[in-house]
């Protein structure tokens, strides 16, 4: 019996791994009544050999599926080994891994068997058992099955920290082409439902602090990139709509891994677009935290992100009229736009310049890469004053320095700038 569990774990972990999201942060679930676990830290307990964070037990309940989405390994027409866990097996596995400090919690998804509601019911039951029978306060992320009823999604929100509905494709046309069983509306409907349910819950919590939590880590989504011809502009516009209109916490970009001989898709052996994926995450990060807009990062005449340099540097090189800024007086909102200066450095600069006039040396000691920022900044010391270099020349110099930050690390979990 134990051998079969191991086999199933292999098959169902393998089938779940293409969902790139692994975040376990954004929740503030506390351990109550001396139970097991808490969810607040977002720890990566291990890293895969491709360098991705392992934070959650990411697994499918089953890889049986009645649908036939071309980009998915679990699609009905694919000839693969199928397996299914029982509700209890997943519950026990989660607890066993959690108690050993392997994971922060569970990320559960599933192929669709029988019908969407039947599948969703079981996902909800697993989360419910963990919370109510095992006093488990670790992180739970449930994938909502397209087509599941609002009532089941509501129940899911009572037990899960995060819920996600994957839009899969950046445009409706691509979705129709590759996932004929699904529709865009089928995905947007639960996203809108979740948005209002989460807002309503926040409002209740403000008024009655005892109100139950509802998906405290919000909702997220994922789209596959590189399987279809959409530009980065189209993709980031969609993402920014998700952030603004539906208050999504995160949008994930999954570089398509060719798994099918299907004529509609890139051939097997086509490289995974990892650099592009990395650039999209960088741009997404700038949209959410640095006050950039999509149109600033991608002017209409160049709808694709620069593959050679990161989007922040690319923006700076297109907008040299803004620079150089004086580190001792510049507005922090502008300072954070300088390539090589992150939000933390901005904070340090702001504090330190109240004590003394900052020099290159001070910046170095704060951990700022002076080689990078010198083209965009002046300080109290004269030694690196930039000459009148053209953007193209700066670009060449920085590229030739081969600074590691310019070589994308192909990871969706970035901590760049």
């Amino acid at each position: 019996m134990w051998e079969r569990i191991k086999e199933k774990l292999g098959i169902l972990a393998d089938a779940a791994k293409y969902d790139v999201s692994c975040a376990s942060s954004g929740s503030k679930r506390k351990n109550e009544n001396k139970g097991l676990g808490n969810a607040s830290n977002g720890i990566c307990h291990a890293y895969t050999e491709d360098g991705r964070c392992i934070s959650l037990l990411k697994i499918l309940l089953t890889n049986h599926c009645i649908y036939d989405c071309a980009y998915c390994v679990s699609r009905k027409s694919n000839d693969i080994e199928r397996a299914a866990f029982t509700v209890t097996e997943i519950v026990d596995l989660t607890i066993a891994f959690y108690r050993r400090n392997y994971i922060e919690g569970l990320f559960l998804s599933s192929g669709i068997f029988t019908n969407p509601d039947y599948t969703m019911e079981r996902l909800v039951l697993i989360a419910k058992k963990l919370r109510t029978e095992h006093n488990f306060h670790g992180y739970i992320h449930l994938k909502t099955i397209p087509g599941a009823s609002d009532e089941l999604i509501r129940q899911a929100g009572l037990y899960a920290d995060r819920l996600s509905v994957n839009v899969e494709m950046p445009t409706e046309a691509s979705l129709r082409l590759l996932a004929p069983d699904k529709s865009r509306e089928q995905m947007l409907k639960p996203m809108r439902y979740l948005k209002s349910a989460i807002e309503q819950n926040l409002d209740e919590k403000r008024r009655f602090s005892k109100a139950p939590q509802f998906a405290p880590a919000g909702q997220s989504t994922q789209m596959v990139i590189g399987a279809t011809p959409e530009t980065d502009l189209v993709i980031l516009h969609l993402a920014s709509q998700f952030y603004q209109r539906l208050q999504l916490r995160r949008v994930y970009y999954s570089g398509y891994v060719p798994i099918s001989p299907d004529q509609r898709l890139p051939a097997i052996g086509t490289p995974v677009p990892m650099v592009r994926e990395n650039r999209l995450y960088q741009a997404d990060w700038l949209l959410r935290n640095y006050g950039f807009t999509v149109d600033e990062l991608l002017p209409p005449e160049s709808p694709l992100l620069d593959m050679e340099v990161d989007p922040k540097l690319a923006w700076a090189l297109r907008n040299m009229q803004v620079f150089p800024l004086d580190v001792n007086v510049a507005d922090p909102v502008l300072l954070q736009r300088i390539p090589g200066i992150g939000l933390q450095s901005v904070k340090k600069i702001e504090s330190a310049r109240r004590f003394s006039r900052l020099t290159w040396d001070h910046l170095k000691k704060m951990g700022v890469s002076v080689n990078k920022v010198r083209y965009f900044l002046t300080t109290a010391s004269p030694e690196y004053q930039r000459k009148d270099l053209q953007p193209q020349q700066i670009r060449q110099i920085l590229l030739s320095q081969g600074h590691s930050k310019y070589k994308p690390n192909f990871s969706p979990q970035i901590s760049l700038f």
Partner: protein
Amino acid sequence: MKTLIYDESFAGWLTAVFELYEFKWPQVTITPACRPEVTMFSEARIIITDEAKALRVWAGLKKRLSQQALEDLYRSFLSEYPGMEDRLLQYVQYVFRSPQNIESDYSHPSVQFVGNIAKKVGREKHRMEAFVRLQQLSTADAAASPGLHAASSSASLYYASISPDFNVLPLIRQHFEQRYADQQWIIYDLRRKYGIFYNLDRTDIITIDFNEGVDTGRHITTVTDPCEVFCQQLWQTYFDRVNIGARKNTKLHIQHMPRRYWKFLTEKQPR
């Protein structure tokens, strides 16, 4: 020139700070008893740790620094970095002689020192919170009802060895208390030869006499508990199968999981 020799405890170091202010010694260096550095031209003095004196210095610092800066100071101390006693002393002297709070004056060398070292210690704390791998030492109810659920009993004792770069046990204790409130556990620092033991009620500092040779490996004993062995195999299976071969990136993998931690990681053991 005076050399103050203290017992390596934080309270001991604070006592030394207290005394040098009390006796107005102008030139002082503080050095730990385990590796005292007394030069020919200095006069050694042994500091007797005194809680009351330590608390007075701490209270003085509390009035002048934020909670975060106090935490950073303590973390820098736990770095055990050679010579940190004097660097931290310079920081504290800068705090006490300035009329305003200086904790964010990153242009001052001692503020930079505390900032940088505290960051490194914080990183190690975070790593230990991630890389501790608890092993169930005995399965109380496994014989009665074998199965997956027996591999996660809250009734048994869980154990992990670590060997961190800095002395982070005092920093990670609360995290594990809050997370594993319903199971007993020991986390043992092999390098510093002490551990913390949570017994469902409180956490104590313990030392264990290991047999010769054990302190190089990750196991307290060879794990024979069948549920534990099975569970470790499941985790290895999981780790192997979530990997996407087409995206292999060893450099990034090692950057996130440096090799020196591997011997304690279940998923990095030979299959």
